[in-house]
């Protein structure tokens, strides 16, 4: 693999024209990190429990499920598409892995579940990659269809793992690796792996190329359909991993457990500065985006605000963060639209 890695890995290898002031562009480029720091300082001032190691670990652990999914969706979005089906897919995979656990043991259950989840991802990939249908509508349709499939599969009943004490399945959601909660380990290792995949492999460059300029990508010999297809497999695999964490954490599942996750996941991806137009984005920044969402939620709850205040704050944060990002790229604060 010939790696022409740049220091700012993850960005497309395209030269950007910058006309704006340098200071602002630096500020805005790292805007998401600065916002992150500001939030942590702010919450730390208002709640003395916020900065405790225990609480920080709790937040990262809680963010792991959305985080792992968001990493997968980031890959899809960089490829120029959306994946809204991940919410139902999470319900599907969690119900499946929990239900199969008692029938065939944890190992086999995880394998079968991953295979089934990859099949759903393949359907997305076929429809968007090969049939060239609009990804928003396809994955919206799949969101509804998969939710129906879950309910048909389980008959609408909750599923539970009966013997929770003696199964090694518990390690994924409740266990520790070298003193660190397993969900955190899975989250960060997965993020690193996908980051390397996207920034230093030929496949990663193809995804950026296909998302950035599909026509040019095709002319340069990239098989666009296959690349898009693969991004959906990655997203489905990520959702399967998230389902293992979730199922192990709760040791049971409701059929609608993933409802609404698709939009939270997307919010995390967007906060990380990935453009919905495709072709740019960074997996590690998605991690930061997801953590910001987690810290907003946790910080506001610790400060005693009602849970719905976080939605209002998220609104403002999303718009400010993306605005800064966009402004830095075009070199001026306000849009040139007349």
């Amino acid at each position, binding site marked *: 693999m010939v790696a022409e890695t740049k220091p700012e890995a993850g960005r497309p290898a395209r030269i950007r024209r910058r006309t704006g002031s340098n200071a602002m562009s630096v500020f805005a480029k790292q805007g998401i990190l600065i916002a992150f720091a500001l939030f942590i300082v702010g919450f730390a001032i208002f709640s003395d429990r916020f900065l405790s190691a*225990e609480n920080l670990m709790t937040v990262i652990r*809680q963010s792991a499920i959305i985080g792992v999914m968001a990493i997968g969706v980031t890959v899809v979005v960089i490829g120029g598409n959306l994946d809204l089906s991940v919410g139902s897919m999470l319900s599907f995979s969690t119900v499946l892995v929990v239900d199969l656990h008692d029938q065939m043991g944890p190992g086999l259950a995880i394998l079968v579940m991953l295979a089934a989840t990859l099949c759903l991802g393949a359907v997305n990939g076929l429809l968007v990659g090969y049939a060239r249908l609009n990804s928003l509508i396809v994955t919206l349709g799949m969101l509804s269809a998969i939710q129906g499939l879950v309910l048909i599969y389980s008959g609408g*009943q*909750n599923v539970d793992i009966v013997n929770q004490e003696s199964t090694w399945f518990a390690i994924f959601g409740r266990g520790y690796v070298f003193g660190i909660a397993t969900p955190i380990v899975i989250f960060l290792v997965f993020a690193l792996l996908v980051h390397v995949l996207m920034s230093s492999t030929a496949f990663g460059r193809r995804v950026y190329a296909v998302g950035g300029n599909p026509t040019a990508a095709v002319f340069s010999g990239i098989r666009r359909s296959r690349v898009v297809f693969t991004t959906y497999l990655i997203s489905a695999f990520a959702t399967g991993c998230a389902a293992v964490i979730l199922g192990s954490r709760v040791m049971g599942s*409701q059929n609608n457990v993933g409802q609404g996750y698709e939009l939270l996941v997307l919010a995390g991806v967007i906060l990380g500065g990935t453009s919905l137009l495709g072709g740019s984005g960074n997996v590690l920044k998605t991690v930061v985006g997801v953590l910001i969402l987690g810290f907003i939620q946790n910080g506001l*709850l610790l400060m*005693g605000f009602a849970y719905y205040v976080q939605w209002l704050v998220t609104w403002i944060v999303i718009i400010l963060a993306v605005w800064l990002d966009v402004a830095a790229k075009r070199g001026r604060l306000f849009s040139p639209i007349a």
Partner: protein
Amino acid sequence: MTPKMKTWIAGTTAMAGIALAGGALAQDDPVTIGITQNNVGVDSYQTTYEQAFVDAAAANPNVETVVLDAGGDVARQIAQIQDLIQQRVDAIIIWPTNGNAVVPAVRQAHQAGIPVVITNSNIAEEGMDFIAAFSGPDNITQGAYSAELMCEALAEEGQDPAEASGQIVQISGQPGYTTAIERQKGFEDRLAEACPGVEIMETQPGDWNREKSQRVMEAFLTKYDTIDGVYSGDDNMGVGALNAAKAAGRADEMAFIGATNFAVGYEAMERGEYYGSIYQSPVDDAEAALQTALDVLAGEDVPKLNYFETPKITQENMTEFSKPVF
């Protein structure tokens, strides 16, 4: 419109007319009861309820049913009520998605001469004139029972429960949903009476969702160094809270009280981790609703409010109850 289309429409009208007449003939003897449920599949209680309802109706040769589900959406439920009126069913059973918002639709059914039975969760006061009867659990009393259980759980050995003291947190059900509101109200009112020494430090919704409740409890555990008890609006959320406390190694210092005993709650009670709950059977709930509707149709004098028994269940008396199937 082209003439061709007109002929075509006329043709279909005639066909539909014949179909309608045929339908009317076949529909002589048995009664048709339509039901629109809140959100089947969202948890096992509702799913088991539907199963039990269908089974109970199938066991009665004189009953035909139209079983619908609103998927938690008020607007869809109103549309379904209209669709049931359209089918001229003999009675409509409604499990309201929202106690206020279905009132006008209930009124329409009432005006169309179709008796309405509300099941599981009652509608707003303003709608009571338009329904034939309500059948379901008494959620206020359930909340009060849970409060009494909390007092008992927090009382020291040999202490009068009324003297109990402690600091507790509450995880409520879906905001805006009648069952959640009533259980919370029943719990808070009775707790203040039964053991004024027990203080509710904070209440957050768990949306009837175990994972959500687990997250809420994790925040509580970070925030409060002392938690003596946790009241959850149902056992599904209660077990989520228990999961969180166990993970933090603090489950032993607090008492868990729930409502609507789920199988997971029953098992946790067996293991001695869960103090008590309220036993509420979806099968009783469904059968009571169907029976109430049949009584109304038979012209019997049915009381407005029909509560079925929902007793307290604790580690001590749990052997008297069979394990919930959901």
